[in-house]
């Protein structure tokens, strides 16, 4: 009876490696679906396998990993257990976790691995009380976390969406239970489809927004790029308010990618100071430049620093067009505006331009404002995006979305409306799990408040 469960089993954000643990009868096949390397279904038990985690949908590599395969019964839970050792920070780990869920596992409840270990006889009976306390304690905490995230705007949106679905369900249901009741419109697939369109569109928006929101809690990866010695490091230092990067007047002194964090209205900006992008023969710096270009690709925000005191160079233009080609949110910082302006702004095709200099802090505030506007930070309610409930919520929302996709297929196949309704109800229940509204009489209540029925 045990389905396959997954959880991150290392503390998030601590340590260089994080482990995702999966347990249950489908654990090996699930991971195999998202693994590039050996066929995990055929490898020996208790082996460690090198390969990549792949997002098949987007056809992209997520992380380079080591996967431990431990087949039942000699495992912690006595079920098939797979552990994925990821490199990445929070974002990568979370992404891998999400993929495991998308491929068919369920997020484990707090203490569930231990519970299974116990139920399957792996843990001594003496520990039973401790297990109970663990389940109780952690789920209480989880419940609180979930409750907290329920106060926000996302849950309100989910509730509104559910209400729309409920009204749709009731209007189909009323035809079924009261077929002779004339005041209800006879619902048909044609009438249902546009309503599903509206619901699906909103659901997709909620999913996208939530994913954006997650980006905010885990931080916006920001790359500061520009030719050598235009003032990238000093800009970073201004932002960080500390001397973290080495600033000199010699071109190319920043060779490492330096990370720093600043918070704008509670949202984390992970700032990466990159080596100057410039053709170079210096081997050490060459690595730095490659990394810079790569960082620019991986970042969510690109801050391009230009020198006010120089004319726009081909390299500048190339940086700007690279950012544009990668569809990045971009801000152009024209630095050294205390010096004579030699730059021709008309050559820059970017609406987001701010001026700074390293002597006073005026431009920095403009930059922060620009970032806020660009990411709608003023609009977001950050309390909505607690990490733990978020992955769970998003995966439930995605399940609801894929159920609605099945609804479209059914509509196309001219499946009777009452059968289509079953799937709409399933999607509605999935969303109910997000908000914790699983009141079984809800639909019946709606039916009798929306329609005047009876004998």
């Amino acid at each position: 009876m045990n389905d396959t469960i997954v959880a991150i089993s290392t503390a998030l954000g601590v340590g260089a490696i994080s482990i995702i643990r999966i347990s249950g009868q489908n654990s090996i096949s699930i991971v195999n679906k998202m693994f590039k390397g050996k066929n995990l279904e055929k490898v020996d038990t208790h082996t460690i396998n090198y390969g990549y985690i792949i997002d098949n949908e987007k056809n992209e590599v997520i992380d380079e990993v080591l996967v431990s395969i431990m087949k039942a019964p000699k495992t912690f839970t006595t079920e098939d257990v797979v552990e994925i050792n990821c490199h990445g920070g929070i974002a990568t780990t979370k992404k891998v976790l999400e993929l495991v869920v998308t491929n068919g596992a369920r997020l484990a409840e707090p203490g569930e691995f231990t519970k299974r270990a116990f139920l399957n006889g792996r843990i001594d009976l003496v520990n039973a009380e401790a297990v109970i306390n663990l389940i109780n304690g952690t789920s209480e905490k989880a419940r609180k976390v979930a409750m907290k995230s329920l106060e926000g705007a996302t849950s309100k949106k989910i509730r509104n969406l559910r209400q729309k679905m409920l009204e749709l369900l009731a209007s189909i249901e009323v035809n079924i239970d009261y077929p002779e009741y004339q005041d209800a419109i006879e619902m048909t697939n044609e009438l249902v489809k546009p309503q599903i369109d509206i619901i699906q569109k909103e659901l997709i928006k909620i999913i996208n927004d939530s994913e954006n929101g997650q980006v905010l809690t885990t931080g916006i990866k920001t790359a500061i790029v520009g030719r050598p010695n235009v003032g990238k490091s000093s800009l970073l230092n201004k932002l960080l308010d500390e001397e973290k990067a080495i600033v000199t007047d010699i071109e190319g002194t920043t060779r490492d990618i330096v990370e720093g964090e600043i918070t704008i209205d509670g949202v984390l900006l992970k700032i990466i100071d990159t080596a100057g992008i410039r053709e170079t023969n210096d081997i050490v710096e060459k690595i730095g430049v490659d990394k810079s270009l790569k960082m620019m690709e991986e970042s969510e925000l690109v801050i391009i620093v230009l020198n006010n005191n120089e004319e726009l160079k081909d390299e500048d233009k190339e940086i700007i067009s690279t950012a544009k080609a990668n569809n990045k949110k971009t801000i152009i910082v024209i630095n050294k505006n205390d010096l004579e302006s030699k730059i021709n702004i008309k050559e820059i095709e970017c609406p987001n331009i701010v001026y700074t200099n390293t002597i006073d802090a005026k431009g920095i505030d403009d930059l922060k404002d620009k970032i806020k506007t660009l990411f709608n930070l003023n609009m977001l309610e950050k309390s909505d995006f607690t990490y733990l409930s978020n992955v769970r919520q998003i995966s439930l929302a995605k399940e609801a979305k894929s159920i609605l996709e099945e609804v479209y297929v059914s509509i196309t196949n001219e499946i009777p409306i009452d059968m289509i309704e079953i799937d709409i109800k399933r999607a509605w229940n999935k969303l109910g799990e997000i908000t914790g509204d699983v009141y079984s009489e809800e639909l019946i209540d709606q039916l009798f408040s929306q329609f005047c029925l009876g004998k």
Partner: protein
Amino acid sequence: MNEYEIIVVGGGHAGCEASLAAARMNHKTLLITGNKKNIADMPCNPSIGGPAKGIIVREIDALGGEMANNIDHSCLQVKMLNTKKGPAVRALRAQGDKVTYPEAMIKTLENQPNLTILEGIVEDLIVENNIIKGIILDDQTIIKSQIVILTTGTYLKAVILRGSTKTSSGPHGEKPSKHLSDNLKKLGFTIQRLKTGTPPRIAKNSIDFSKTSLEPGDSIGYTFSFDNKPMYDVANQISCHLVYSNDKTHKIIMDNLDKSSMYGGYVEGIGPRYCPSIEDKVVRFKDKERHQLFLEPESIYYDDIYIQGFSTSMPEDVQEKMVHSLEGLEKAEILKYAYAIEYDAIDPLQIKQSLETKIIENLYTAGQINGTSGYEEAAGQGLIAGINAARKLEKKPPLILKRNEAYIGVLIDDLVTKGTKEPYRMLTSRAEYRLLLRHDNADIRLREYGYQVGLISEEKYEKFIKKQQNINKLTNLLKSTKITPKKEVNDYFEKINTPKLSEGSTTLFDILKRPEINLSHLKHFIDIDFDIEVIEQVEINTKYEGYIAKANREAQKMLDLENIKIPTDINYDKINNLASEALQKLKEIKPTSIGQASRISGVNPADISILMVYLKKEKKI
């Protein structure tokens, strides 16, 4: 007085099924009713079946109950509802004849060996050490038995209300039982007050039918029972008629609202939302200009017309005005005024899934006493109570239908797990696995159980086995017959307007999945010489294979939890860390499985985990 094995108290739809099942299972049974003439009475609308309810009637038939057969013998009009929708929600509804329906049932009861019918009012129970021993009538007669089944309907402390008038009476002015509910309370039962109502009856010849619209029956003949052929004159069915309330009606209601029992504050009981009075409808849906009302004939032997949708608790003079405001009914003569009725019921959380009460051993309850409404809901419970009472005597485990097996299972599970605060009506939306609980497959789902308990004869059972074999035979034939894109095949496909084959071979089974294809199209390729019922099953199973499989998967998840039993001797107080609400609910409801426990509101997944760990620790699972 003789001693009986089983006594059934009440001759309504629950009582009839309970006593017939018990007697047919070879137990000496006594049916006690206030008035023999009112056995199998239809005090409210003259119809049986409808969405969900019609499926219950089929389930009763599949299990070996009587309701389906009885309505087949006494119907005036039959309709298949929801024909434009999928097979899962199709259901039969019949207009029954209020004279012949009870007559047929009384005849069946009288001809039933092992069954005695007695007129009397039961006022008390004999209980020793929490085990039932018999009943006491209002004239102090004592009748002993090993088992008692209470199917008292609306007769416990029944009060009829019209305006400010309250009369202690059951339907038709029958004597209610005045003390039985108090005595149940003394035994520890929680008593709740419920309410229902019925509309006025008017004389057929006083209606101007030219101002109404016609609602005829279907042109195809149907039966509820799997073993009957239509017995009514399909071409000459009695019609119903449709009229509407109007501004004038609504004004009369609003002007006199405080005179109604409901709004005047004379009612204590809680009424069902799905059966609101016309005043409720007018008040709650102010914007609606009119409400539909169906004029339904009650019998071909008398003139009463039932105004479906017009139930009210207004005083008689206001009812006159209300009826006369309706178009076509300006001169209508009211033969029987509408009324609301209040009655006592027990809290169904106090009964087990077998319908035996938790407090008193060998005492069973079924029907409205358990908080339900409707003839079909009552009959379904009555049948299960009768079966389980007999099995208790035979020392066999009770028959408990699961939520994926029958609407009757959903009904009983809902009652004993969630309780009810208003009269409970079955709706298709209460069933999670609606696609599995179809009216067409009730026999496939349940006939085996009916046979096992001894209510289905060898002859009927053999017929059923043959049907199943034929379904398998036809399915295998479709799966094993392959066709290829030959010219002849594609020419035929073009002719029947279905896409041509392009490459490879395709089974007929896959071809049948196409929405535009049915089995008659496939006669082109194979001989299909099967009954219509077999063809129907194969078509449904094939066309909706994916959906049925999905429903079965969902059901399996439920069954897995259902299979983890909770021992009856569990002491919840010993389990640390259960949330206090969960603890209280678990102690009250005493779920028999983890599945049932998880359906109790207020019992959270964390509580279920704790419960499972505890059971494991105690080596109980």
